[in-house]
């Protein structure tokens, strides 16, 4: 079964925020709303053994998305290819899914013509047209990898095989995004 995901090679991420910017452009995201943010982890350690890396965070397109199970209208749903989306025509803006998300990656857009929940769509509109998500295409360090994790020849699968990978803390939701990190110590809770 296809399992589309965006994995991130943190050893290649330079923290330029291009992914965050292009995401806003591609998806016409309103002011104050973020689908993707690039966090700075560190500096940690004691000079001269200092470490710092960048952590791009967006929807993890979880294997067992809690946002989907709590949604009273089934507006939040997981596609067969693994992408978690929100059907805005059904979303009542109850924000229950925001509460259920362990990572705070969903947002309630309260602008007059919205009143619904917004989040990373993995650029499903581009993926469906055979293209890659905008953040993957723009990344100057080629740190972002898009593909079917079940396909050994895909970029995410190859990164997973070649590097130490980590995921965000799992509270039963099964985050999908893998972060490759060999150069530094992963500082997240696992």
């Amino acid at each position, binding site marked *: 079964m296809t399992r589309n995901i965006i994995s991130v090679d943190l050893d290649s991420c330079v923290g330029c925020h291009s992914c965050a910017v292009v995401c806003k452009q591609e998806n016409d995201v309103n002011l104050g709303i973020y689908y993707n943010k690039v966090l700075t982890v560190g500096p940690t350690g004691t000079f001269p053994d200092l470490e710092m890396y960048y952590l791009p965070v967006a929807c993890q397109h979880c294997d067992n998305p809690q946002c989907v199970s*709590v949604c009273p209208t089934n507006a939040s749903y997981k596609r067969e290819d693994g992408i978690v989306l929100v059907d805005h025509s059904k979303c009542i803006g*109850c924000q229950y899914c925001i509460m259920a*998300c362990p990572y705070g990656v969903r947002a309630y857009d309260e602008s007059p013509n919205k009143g619904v929940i917004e989040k990373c769509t993995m650029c499903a509109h581009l993926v469906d047209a055979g293209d890659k998500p905008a953040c993957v295409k723009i990344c100057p360090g080629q740190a972002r990898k898009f593909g079917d994790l079940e396909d050994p020849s895909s970029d995410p699968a190859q990164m997973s095989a070649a590097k130490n990978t980590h995921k965000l803390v799992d509270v039963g*939701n099964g985050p999908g995004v893998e972060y490759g990190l060999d150069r530094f110590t992963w500082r997240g809770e696992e």
Partner: protein
Amino acid sequence: MEIQWPLLVFSVLLGISSGIYVFNGIGEVKNVFKEVRFKGALIALILLAIGGCASVLHLGHPERATHLLANIGSGLSMELIAVGLLGVTGFIYLFLAKRANTASKVLGVITALLGLALPCITGSSFMMAARPAWDSITLPLLYLGAGLAAGFLLMAALVVLGPKGKEEGKFALMLALIGVLLMVVTVIAYLIWVAVAPHQAPERSLSRLVSGDLALMFWAGVVLIGLVVPAGIALWARTKIAKTSNAEGAALKAKGSLAGALIIACICAVAGSAILRSIVYLIGTSVEQFIY
């Protein structure tokens, strides 16, 4: 997370409503409180309706409510069903409350059981692994305890003011005291959970309540106003009515002050539970608060 005021108002009002229904249900089973059941049922239904309307203010698109039962397993859907059931049965009970027959007893017990269930369903809809400070059975119990305390105190005031204040006041105040004690126990249980919850972090720690930025809200709002005052008044009232109910004239004089004190206790219990619910929101941070 930010305090969701419409949901807070909804949960507090439905709690009081539930407490009233449970009180009435006990009265139906014990064949007491007949004179106040209708008033109580009316107040409960009005509070439930106002709370329901408040919750709608939280939605971005309430007109899409037709989709609301698409996922019955969702906590929100279960909440909606429970509110609907209590609303319908509560409305029917209004017509039976004064009759004191089998039908009123049956409906009284049904609304009481729904009254016990509804705060638990509402509280459990917030139980989610993503927010460790909420992910415990102590949260729905907190909702239940607060509702019973407020509802019982209000109804006890009505009983004391009613024609059978002397005969039924002792029992009513015993129930009020039990309600307040349940509130105290459930608050303590929740605080214990906050202290031992997994994924401890400063923004959702007990120390934030006890000595941090939420200390004033906690000690003044929750402990003093929300627990100590109602408990003190309930104890005092129970003692007072036990002394005066045997004396012919004294019970009549005590009515006004007793009822007034009980109303104050109810208001304090409601205020305290609202403040505690605000705190619950503020410490309800997600396991990893990345973007928001």
